[in-house]
């Protein structure tokens, strides 16, 4: 049974429709990322799951129960905000203790001074103390417990926000771009930490990000959102290797996938690309224009007779372990990016003509509307490779 089930969730703010009917099932213990460009409605969807925002239509189930209209505090979820939303007047210890105090103590037991007169306060506080210490230990911030948020670095604040979320055992964790306020190096480090935390807690994580690399590196599954719709859900490999939509292909992967303008011709609906006839049969009527996606690492250098695409080297980006070639190809608006291993292009100079080839199974074809189109190798032709 799915832990979270969203069916036909819509949301409008005044006249603009931000979510246009989202269906999503999330399994218990899964790490799922909602990824998409900013403004596509990821945070809104997360806030609807949290109960901070009411959907205009559709329903949300958590653990089999419909939670529509149930207050956030009663949904038993924990959230990490992009801004961390730490209580600035409380120490790290007290920040982390808040969720426990809210749940384990009565209103009377939370009043200053008076609280100690109520029976049970002392033992409850002892339990809270132990739990907070445990979390601080787990996140390696025992030394910080008596500081205020203003005295912490960005990374430490982020850790406190995570600590406040994991200190109790909620039914799921909602994280809204928790790393986007950190510097690049720390972000990469925290990716690993959060993924390890997920494995350790074995809890459901719903992780919102606009950074496809974060989604790819941490998730069990990725839901790619565009304009208020989830347009593809799958494992990181699925989404990378088998994009069902041109927008997914372009969003996932860095450097971006190469998109070349091609067309189908003839009775056998072969593909014509940069003046070459590629011997595959496209399941799309002849005469249609086709966007051909080829990942930079699928491009290879070729001898001039085996070339499928040729162009002039405009720029070379040396990344150490690999090198990216920017090749201007006639008739294509953007340069073709080729990713080669370290030293793979040492002899080539800027301005030289180079010839490129690729395997046919590495082509991803999309029609004019951006939908994926099938293709199979034409008969009696040898596969390129």
């Amino acid at each position, binding site marked *: 049974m799915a832990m979270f089930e969203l069916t036909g969730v819509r949301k409008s703010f005044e006249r603009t429709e931000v979510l246009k009917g989202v269906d999503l099932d999330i399994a218990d213990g899964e790490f799922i990322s909602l990824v998409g460009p900013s403004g596509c409605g990821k945070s809104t969807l997360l806030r609807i799951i949290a109960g901070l925002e009411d959907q205009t239509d559709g329903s949300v189930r958590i653990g089999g129960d419909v939670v529509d209209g149930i207050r956030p505090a009663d949904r038993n979820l924990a*959230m990490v905000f992009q801004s961390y939303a730490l209580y600035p007047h409380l120490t790290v210890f007290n920040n982390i203790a808040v969720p426990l105090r809210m749940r384990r103590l009565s209103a009377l037991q939370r009043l200053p001074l008076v609280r100690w007169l109520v029976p049970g306060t002392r033992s409850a506080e002892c339990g809270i103390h132990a739990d907070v210490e445990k979390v601080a230990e787990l996140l390696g911030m025992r030394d910080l417990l008596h500081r205020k948020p203003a005295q912490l670095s960005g990374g430490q604040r982020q850790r406190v926000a995570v600590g406040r979320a994991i200190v109790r055992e909620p039914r799921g964790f909602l994280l809204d771009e928790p790393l986007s306020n950190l510097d690049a190096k720390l972000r990469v480090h925290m990716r690993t930490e959060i993924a390890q935390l997920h494995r350790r807690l074995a809890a459901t994580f719903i992780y919102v990000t606009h950074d496809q690399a974060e989604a790819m590196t941490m998730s069990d599954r990725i839901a790619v959102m565009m304009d208020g719709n989830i347009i593809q859900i799958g494992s990181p490999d699925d989404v990378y290797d088998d994009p069902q939509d041109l927008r997914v292909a372009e969003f996932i992967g860095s450097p971006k996938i190469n998109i070349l303008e091609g067309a189908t011709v003839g009775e056998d609906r072969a593909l014509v690309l940069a003046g070459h006839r590629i011997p595959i049969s496209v399941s799309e009527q002849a005469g249609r224009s086709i966007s051909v996606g080829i990942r930079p690492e699928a491009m290879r250098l070729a001898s001039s007779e085996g070339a499928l695409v040729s162009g002039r080297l405009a720029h070379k980006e040396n990344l150490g372990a690999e090198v990216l070639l920017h090749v201007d190809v006639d008739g294509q608006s953007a340069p073709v990016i080729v990713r080669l291993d370290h030293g793979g292009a040492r002899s080539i100079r800027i301005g030289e003509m180079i010839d490129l080839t690729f395997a046919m199974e590495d082509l991803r074809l999309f029609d004019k509307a951006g939908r994926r189109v099938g293709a199979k190798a034409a008969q009696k032709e040898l596969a390129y490779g």
Partner: protein
Amino acid sequence: MADVAIATTLSQETAEPARRGRPRLLAKLRRPLAALTLLLPAMTLMTLLLIGPVVAVLAMSLTDYQLGAPSWSFVGFDNYLELYGDRVFWTSLLNTLVYVAIVVPASMALGLGIALLIESGTSLRAFYRSIFFIPVMATLIAMAISWEYMLHPQFGLINLTLKSLGLPAQAWLTNPELALPTIAAIGVWQLFGFNMVLFLAGLVSIPPHLYEAAVMDGARSAWSRFWLVTWPMLGPVTMFVAIISAIRSFQVFDTVHVLTKGGPSKATEVLLYSMYSEGFEFFRSGHAAAIAVVFLAFVLLLTILKVRVIEKKVHYA
């Protein structure tokens, strides 16, 4: 304007010889000179209107000067000693403190309560903001006169209302036990709108994410969210409002002057009213000046507190 003109010519005159003699020194002095020149008008005004009178009052409090008298002599601390032994002065000081002790918490609680209501409502916010702010802008003398009509023992709106509800009418301003609380109630009415506006500004600056975090952390009731987020986040504003309210209510005078003249039997005698009657009814200017100095000492104390609080802007660092 005249100040500026004089100031510039002065500085030019002093600068001229230096230019010929030691150009380096001039270059060094140019910035401080310019700063002084620019400060001069403000400093002149401050000296004339603020520091001068304060020094004059301080000096006068050490004399037996009487308004209109041709001569006066230095009497040292006699005026203060006299105050120390004067029952009326102590009554007046105590009344002022009681007035402050009623008006400050009441006007703050009312201001905060109404600010919270306005902030949580969705419609007519600007309307409520304006009507609650009207008492702040109205001239208190004029308002005191309308209060006088409302509080009239026989025909006043308040007693008529009480009677129609079957409750006993009260002699609001002539009953010694009720007079000071009544004056204080008018003070609250006059002040809470101002506090409300300050609290509204404070409430708007609380990041909404904190309330969402509180809700996610299990703060179900508005009550618990108030104590977890609103109250602590308003801390600096609250301090500021408390001090400003204290300073303002220390200055109570208009209502007393219009409604009770300090009576009945000194029940509403307050510091500024004592000073006024000493100085302008009995013409004992030296004595009035001593009261003014006591008053200034209190206001100065509160002002120092305020400066301290405002300098500690990084309240939660």
